[in-house]
């Protein structure tokens, strides 16, 4: 038997293993890179603006000059939280109810039509939702029923809600579909109606997956950029002329992501405090979404019901 190639073969085996390991390490490097770069650049910013003033200041006017320039991030956080809350009000209940329908009521034919439609909704680029918010939701749906500005937090929030809807539906539906059949049959045998089975047995059994999908959807809403860049306007909440306060969703409401996109779509000088403020905002955004993603994973692990 000729085994002369064996040694060479083993050497290349080891080399390949380490090459693959290096690929896996690139994903770690990416995370490390994101954290380091946000920290390093944000540090430049915090050298000039104290962290405290940044986090708790209530006026955000980074592009003004001289003494009018202020870096209080609260209005941007408010813009992000309010638009995300509007999105959640739309996507969470609607998504959960659609998921219940798909998992517990729909027949296989209805499913085979509805699921591809949701997949299409999930694949629509976010810029299209932004266009939809600006040219349809605001002028066609909202203008006739209320006094609303061309750029406003409400229509952006609604569009984000529609964008995250498929995520909630598909993840919640997955969670409910994986509840074993025996639980449904036991409920029916006790005389429960289909609705009672769905809401009192299936939803509680799948609650970890459902809540995880909710948290992921909110995290996606917080990180969404293009919709708010197009439709939410360029003045922070409460700082546009017509706005009555940070809660005024009918007026311009810039978010953290919207600010970053806005600054880069116009030209900005490198090395200025305004430039470094982008990384302060980016760092805050990264931390917020990271916390939510970790929370979602924790909920999935901690509250999962395991059936054999």
């Amino acid at each position, binding site marked *: 038997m000729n085994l002369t190639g064996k040694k060479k073969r083993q050497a290349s*085996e080891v080399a*390949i*293993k380490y090459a*693959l*390991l290096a*690929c*896996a390490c690139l*994903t*770690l490097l*990416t*995370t490390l*890179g*994101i954290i380091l*770069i946000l920290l390093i650049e944000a540090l430049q910013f915090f050298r000039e603006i104290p962290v405290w003033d940044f986090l708790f200041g209530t006026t955000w006017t980074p592009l003004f000059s001289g003494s009018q320039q202020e870096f209080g991030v609260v209005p941007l956080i408010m813009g992000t939280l309010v638009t995300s809350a509007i999105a959640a009000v739309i996507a969470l*209940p*609607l998504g959960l*109810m*659609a998921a219940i*329908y*798909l998992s517990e009521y729909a027949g296989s034919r209805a499913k085979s039509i*509805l699921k591809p*439609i949701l*997949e299409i*909704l999930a*694949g*629509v*680029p*976010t*810029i*299209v939702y932004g*266009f*939809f918010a600006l*040219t349809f939701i605001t002028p*066609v749906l909202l203008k006739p029923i209320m006094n609303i500005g061309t750029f406003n937090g409400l229509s952006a929030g609604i569009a984000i809600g*529609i964008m995250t*809807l498929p995520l909630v539906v598909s993840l919640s539906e997955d969670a409910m579909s994986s509840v074993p059949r025996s639980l449904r049959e036991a409920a029916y045998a006790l*005389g429960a*109606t*289909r*609705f*009672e089975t769905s*809401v009192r047995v299936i939803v509680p059994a799948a609650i970890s997956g459902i809540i995880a999908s909710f948290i992921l959807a909110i*995290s*996606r809403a917080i*990180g*969404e*950029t*293009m919709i708010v*860049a*197009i439709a939410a306007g360029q003045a922070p909440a409460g700082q546009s002329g017509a706005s009555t306060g940070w809660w005024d969703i009918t007026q311009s409401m810039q978010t953290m992501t919207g600010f*970053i*996109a806005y600054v*880069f*779509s116009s030209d900005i000088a490198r090395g200025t405090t305004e430039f470094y403020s982008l990384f302060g905002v*980016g760092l805050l*955004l*990264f931390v917020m979404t*990271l916390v939510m*993603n*970790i929370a979602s994973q924790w909920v999935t692990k901690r509250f999962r019901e395991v059936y054999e």
Partner: protein
Amino acid sequence: MSSDVSVNLKSSSYAPKVARRQFSGSVWKWVFMGSTALAVVLLGMLIWSVVKPGASWLNWHLITSMPSRRAEMAGMNSAIWGSIWLVLGSAIVSFIFGLGTAIYLEEYAPVNRFTDFVQTNIANLAGVPSIVYGLLGLIVFVDWMQMGRSILAGALTMGLLILPVVVIASREAIRAVPSSLRQASYGLGATKWQTVRSHVLPAAFPGILTGMILSMSRAMGETAPLIVVGGASQVLFRPDGPLSGFMVMPLQIYNWTGRPQEEFEHLAAAAIIVLMIVLLIMNSIAIGLREYFGRKNRW
């Protein structure tokens, strides 16, 4: 306490109330159905809001000419070419590293805390807002590596962005290959890599390809990181190399949407139709492949 018990034991709480419960059940059924129907209606409205202003502006001129300050003259040729370059570039990056990571995690990685950490990290990367990747790309690729605002910098940024998607899809495809295939290969004396290369990867290939196409369509529609890396100004030329400046379709749409003149809104809508058609074709290919190989491979 005792009064609570007596309340609970009232005979009325044991009455089946069948009619009432069935009625509320059927009401809720319509509510659930209505929610699902609303999603369909929303998709309809979305399409309508784009097709109505855009359809009449959709013509060859739009596809073959360069952007212009005058809406009637403007086209998206540079954006189409930019998108092709960028998507292919990011696909190459994410394919090499994504598949490598997936093979490592599925076939090589020992069960330990490091492997656990890598997996959690990938899940978290998938949730990082896309604009944060833009900030990473701006500093690392554009500044440190001095690539400038080039296609290369954009493709590397986008490659990192879609990397988690590629890893997750490839892992699922590799995991679906039955272990009997691996054991048969080992039984014939093949080494680990030979087994992976000649048996696992070919069997997992359709799934990997499907995942690749889906992640490419994600890269095609993504805008935010490229605003940071590429800038949103006009580009009046086709890219001629990896270090060329670039424009992509979603950025062009963003650029046009932001203008006050109404003609540009029509132009943006027409460009969205083009983008959506491209995405629809890519996704149909992915679904078609999945169906075709799904029927063919039955383990």
